[in-house]
């Protein structure tokens, strides 16, 4: 198991290194000189040259890359070419916001998916199970932003129960923070939950067909208690895996939901960066997202081993 951890870590590190080269490379081949882009169409060549020097863009690509990478390793994200402000604190601020959204969205998804998926599996031949299946199918088919708009129309505009949008940091006004968090987290979580529900269903179905569960039922346990005692741990393995993958989807889904709910998260930072051609900022945010996804995948892998005793031994 230790070895496996070492191996996975090595793979992670190599992946991180390669992806940093990819991200840097992609930005480097983008048409347009960042300095000229930052200064504008009418800038003089001298001004551009001066800015290039100021940003260090006159150095070789390799130097720039290692400089950037070295900075990242010290949590120094550089200074924006456009706003001339340090990027690190901005990213950190926005990341906190997005993390709240993603984590609470994930919790919503789990709270929806685990019971719904289990019921769907346990009653897969019954009307209630089929009805739930149909609902989850519909949930998967609705774009997250549409769900958001509908939630706003209903709960904020029509009923006036919750604010339509906005963001308040939890420290400054916890009540407002929660009220503003509910709708975006729901629109992110419900749609994601619908997807997750179907994985839970199939994982539970698999477990239901296992011999030990049949035995347990043969011994007279009713389906839900039998599942509870024997099944859920086993069903958790594939679900956790999917959850890890979905975290990446959620991070990106947050981009759209942030737009609908006017939340100053990483997604809006990224979109602003792209439209302002704030290349270094975009590069940093993309790298951060990629790192997040890779690290989550790594953790899922590790968790996977921890959850499945068969895999822990290192053999089938």
């Amino acid at each position, binding site marked *: *198991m*230790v*070895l*496996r951890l*070492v191996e996975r870590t090595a793979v992670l590190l190599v992946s991180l290194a390669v992806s940093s080269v990819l991200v840097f490379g992609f930005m480097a081949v983008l048409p347009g000189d960042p300095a000229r882009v930052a200064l504008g169409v009418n800038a003089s060549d001298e001004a551009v040259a001066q800015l290039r020097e100021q940003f260090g863009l006159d150095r070789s690509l390799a130097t720039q890359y290692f400089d950037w990478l070295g900075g990242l390793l010290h949590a120094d994200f550089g200074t924006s070419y456009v706003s001339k402000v340090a990027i690190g604190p901005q990213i950190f601020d926005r990341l906190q916001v997005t993390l709240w959204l993603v984590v609470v969205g994930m919790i919503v998804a789990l709270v929806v998916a685990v019971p719904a998926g289990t019921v769907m599996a346990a009653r897969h031949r019954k009307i209630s199970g089929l009805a739930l299946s149909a609902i989850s199918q519909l949930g998967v088919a609705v774009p997250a932003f549409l769900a958001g708009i509908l939630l706003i129309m209903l709960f904020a505009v029509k009923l006036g129960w919750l604010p339509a949008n906005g963001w308040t940091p939890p420290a400054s006004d916890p009540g407002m923070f929660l009220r503003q968090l509910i709708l975006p987290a729901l629109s992110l979580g419900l749609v994601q939950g619908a997807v997750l529900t179907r994985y839970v269903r199939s994982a539970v179905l698999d477990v239901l067909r296992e011999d030990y569960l049949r035995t347990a039922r043969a011994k007279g346990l009713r389906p839900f208690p039998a599942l509870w005692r024997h099944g859920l741990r086993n069903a958790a393995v594939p679900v956790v895996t999917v959850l890890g993958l979905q975290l990446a989807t959620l991070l990106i889904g947050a981009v759209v939901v942030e737009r609908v709910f006017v939340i100053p998260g990483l997604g809006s930072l990224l979109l602003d960066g792209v439209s302002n051609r704030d290349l270094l900022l975009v590069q940093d945010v993309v790298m951060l997202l990629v790192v997040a996804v890779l690290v989550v995948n790594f953790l899922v892998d590790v968790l996977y081993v921890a959850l499945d005793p068969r895999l822990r*031994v*290192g*053999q089938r």
Partner: protein
Amino acid sequence: MTEPAIQVTDLVRDYPRPRTSLLRASPPVHALRGVSLEVQEGERFGIVGESGCGKSTLLRIIAALDRATSGQVVVEGTDITRLPERRLRFLRENLQLVFQDPMSSLDPRMRVRDIIAEPLVVQGHPASGERVRELLDAVGLSADAGDRYPHQFSGGQRQRISIARALAPRPRILIADEPVSALDVSVRAQVLNLISDLVDELNLTLIFVSHDLSVVKHVCSRVAVMNAGQIVETGPTADVYAAPTHPYTRRLVSAIPTLQRALSGATTTDLVKGVLST
């Protein structure tokens, strides 16, 4: 008969196992631990042993579908152990296999005609419909069977198709890997008899593998008993059956009554084991 059809010397096959410790390499799985045997031309040679004893590995190495860790396989005078794939043409023409699982041994997306003709096409023979019909006839299937797909046949019929495919390139050596163990009891005898008849008729060398000593006894003149990657006993089938010398063989022989019972129905566990070992 100057040289044996197949000569296996000191064959070893290890499979790596994933490391579980940083410091030591994991001990490899020893699938074969020094197997030697000789099969004479025209001989019907049986290999018997439990699931997982290394039978299938041995067959695959003989058929050059897997590579040995060490040791030597000589087929009709040629050492194939280190030959690259492109120089194995003679082997591909002269040695064919029949597999255990009638479900998995035929490509579900191909017509029976194309399945049987595949070795011919691959080896550049003119794939005449004539030959396919001839083969279908030889295994007891009607000529229109060629137009159908494998799933339209029963297990026994599929095994006949497998046999027809194996015979297509007119091999001199036929290797049968548990050809009947996945079949219904009722059709086992038919398929066994078919193999037996064809081997006689075409004057083939047969290697027949089974976990079932009684089946081997039915078909083979000589038998090797394998256990845990090693051959523990070799000899004429009748002798081994009548007077097993190795304790493991004795256990196998004494288990035959149980096997009889197994044949009459309670084969689930065996079958599952069989499936897992492949």
